[in-house]
């Protein structure tokens, strides 16, 4: 069974006529990284906050791991769900270690276990252990958000809710933290609901994109599928789905080779640049163009596994576009 099942989840705020979230139904599998994307005011935060019951739904049902979210107390539920917000919400009067220890303490872990967990988490988010005694204000914005992430992960919740966690960071720090998050996710396999209105961030992080508009779900699919087949003009415009470079940045050299059968194998001569299977096609295209449009060999573990030429890229692009507008 799916890990999260939302069944016609609805929230109408007191005094409002139009629901902020309107009969939303969806399912999320265990370990899935789902990004909620949509314009400001479309109900992303409201939907997220219904999951940990910071907002009580006015209608509908929510099952988390087979259990109705209303069947336990809200505080008990929240201690089992990691929560990261844009303003970090770190407690300014507590040190980094005290911040991280909050939920384990609420859960009455013993001192030794908490101490060990703090070290483990600081390592995980790549902060030096010497930061333990510091206060949040003594850290940079990016470091504070790492602490926010560590704090949310502290009691090892299966589910993480993240509301624009990197929204206030500069582009470079944001990109680095996205990488970190992906790396952490590869290790921990959390189920993640992540809100953003940054399209590139969404495409980069999501296993599946949940696209919302005025309180409803417009499309819920993988980034590639959403780009290839936007449900409507709204989605197309939101993602600039016609942006070829954007689509190429979601495909890898390996994807292109896989669909291309057994192409000829170029021998890598020493002067030439080589590509790796993990490179994005966007990266590959840039390198191919820089090499004057000639094919570049793909090398994995010292082995020549294929080549990427402009038409390899073009056909990979066509293959992922089911219905090309004529």
């Amino acid at each position, binding site marked *: 069974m799916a890990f999260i099942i939302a069944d016609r989840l609805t929230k109408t705020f007191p005094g409002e006529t139009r629901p902020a979230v309107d009969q939303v139904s969806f399912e999320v599998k265990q370990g899935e990284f789902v990004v909620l994307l949509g314009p400001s005011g479309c109900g992303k935060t409201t939907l997220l906050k219904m999951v940990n019951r910071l907002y009580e739904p006015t209608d509908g049902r929510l099952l988390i791991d087979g259990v109705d979210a209303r069947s336990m107390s809200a505080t008990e539920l929240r201690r089992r769900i990691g929560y990261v*917000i844009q303003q970090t*919400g770190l407690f300014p009067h507590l040190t980094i270690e005290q911040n991280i220890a*909050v939920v384990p303490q609420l859960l009455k872990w013993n001192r030794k276990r908490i101490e060990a967990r703090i070290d483990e988490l600081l390592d995980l988010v790549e902060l030096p252990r010497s930061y333990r005694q510091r206060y949040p204000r003594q850290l940079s914005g990016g470091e504070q958000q790492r602490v926010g992430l560590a704090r949310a992960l502290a009691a090892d919740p299966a589910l993480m809710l993240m509301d624009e966690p990197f929204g206030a960071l500069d582009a470079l720090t944001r990109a680095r933290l996205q990488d970190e998050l992906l790396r952490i996710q590869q290790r921990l396999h959390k189920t993640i609901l992540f809100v953003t209105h940054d399209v590139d961030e969404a495409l980069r992080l999501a296993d599946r994109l949940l696209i919302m508009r005025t309180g409803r779900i417009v499309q819920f699919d993988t980034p590639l599928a959403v780009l290839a087949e936007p449900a409507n003009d709204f989605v197309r415009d939101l993602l600039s789905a016609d942006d070829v470079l954007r689509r190429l940045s979601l495909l890898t050299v390996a994807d292109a080779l896989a669909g291309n059968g057994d192409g000829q194998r170029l021998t890598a001569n020493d002067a030439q640049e080589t590509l790796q299977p993990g490179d994005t096609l966007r990266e590959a295209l840039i390198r191919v163009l820089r090499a004057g449009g000639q094919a570049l060999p793909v090398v994995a573990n010292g082995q020549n596994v294929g080549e990427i030429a402009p038409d390899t890229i073009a056909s990979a692009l066509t293959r992922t576009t089911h219905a090309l507008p004529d």
Partner: protein
Amino acid sequence: MIDLLADAYNYFLANQSRFWAATTQHLWISSAALAISIAAGLPLGIWAAHEARIGQWAINLFGALRLVPSLAVLFLVQPYLGIGTTPALVALTLLAIPPVLIATYAGMRSVDSGVCEAARGMGMTAGQILWRVELPLALPSIVGGVRTAAVEVIASATLAAFIGGGGLGIFITRGYALFDTRIMLVGAIPVALLALMAELSLGWMQRRLASGLGAAT
């Protein structure tokens, strides 16, 4: 001037037992008023901060009450409570509640909303949020309110003598009645020193707490 101070000192030496009794009474009535006003103003301020609508309204009301001069408060309670220590205590308490209340309210409201949201989202109960997050963060502001209240109460307790409440004010009323400035000084100087001590010590505490929270700039 020097003569005047010397005379005042001589009067003090001649009336030591009365002086110390009056000082004790002054301190007692001030501390009692302060303690009661904290016991009332703190929960009221917390309540007001949590009840966004009514809270603001209540705060404005108490803000307006502060404009009533302390002397007027003293004389206003007198017809109902008569003379003596009790009406003085009531008047001083009424005087001290608004600064404590307003500072508590302001301190609680100044807590970053993201911090409270995170606390709730992590599964803290309302009580845990209050004790572990809101009150520690509001403490510098609350101490600031207590400081204002303490200085006001110590100064105003002088007026208690007018309605038979005792305290160092008795020297001032007596000096005034006898047109004797040196007697007035025996009351006025210690009161000023006490108020100054309260101001300095609580101000120091407030700054220490604030710098502990990184709020001092």
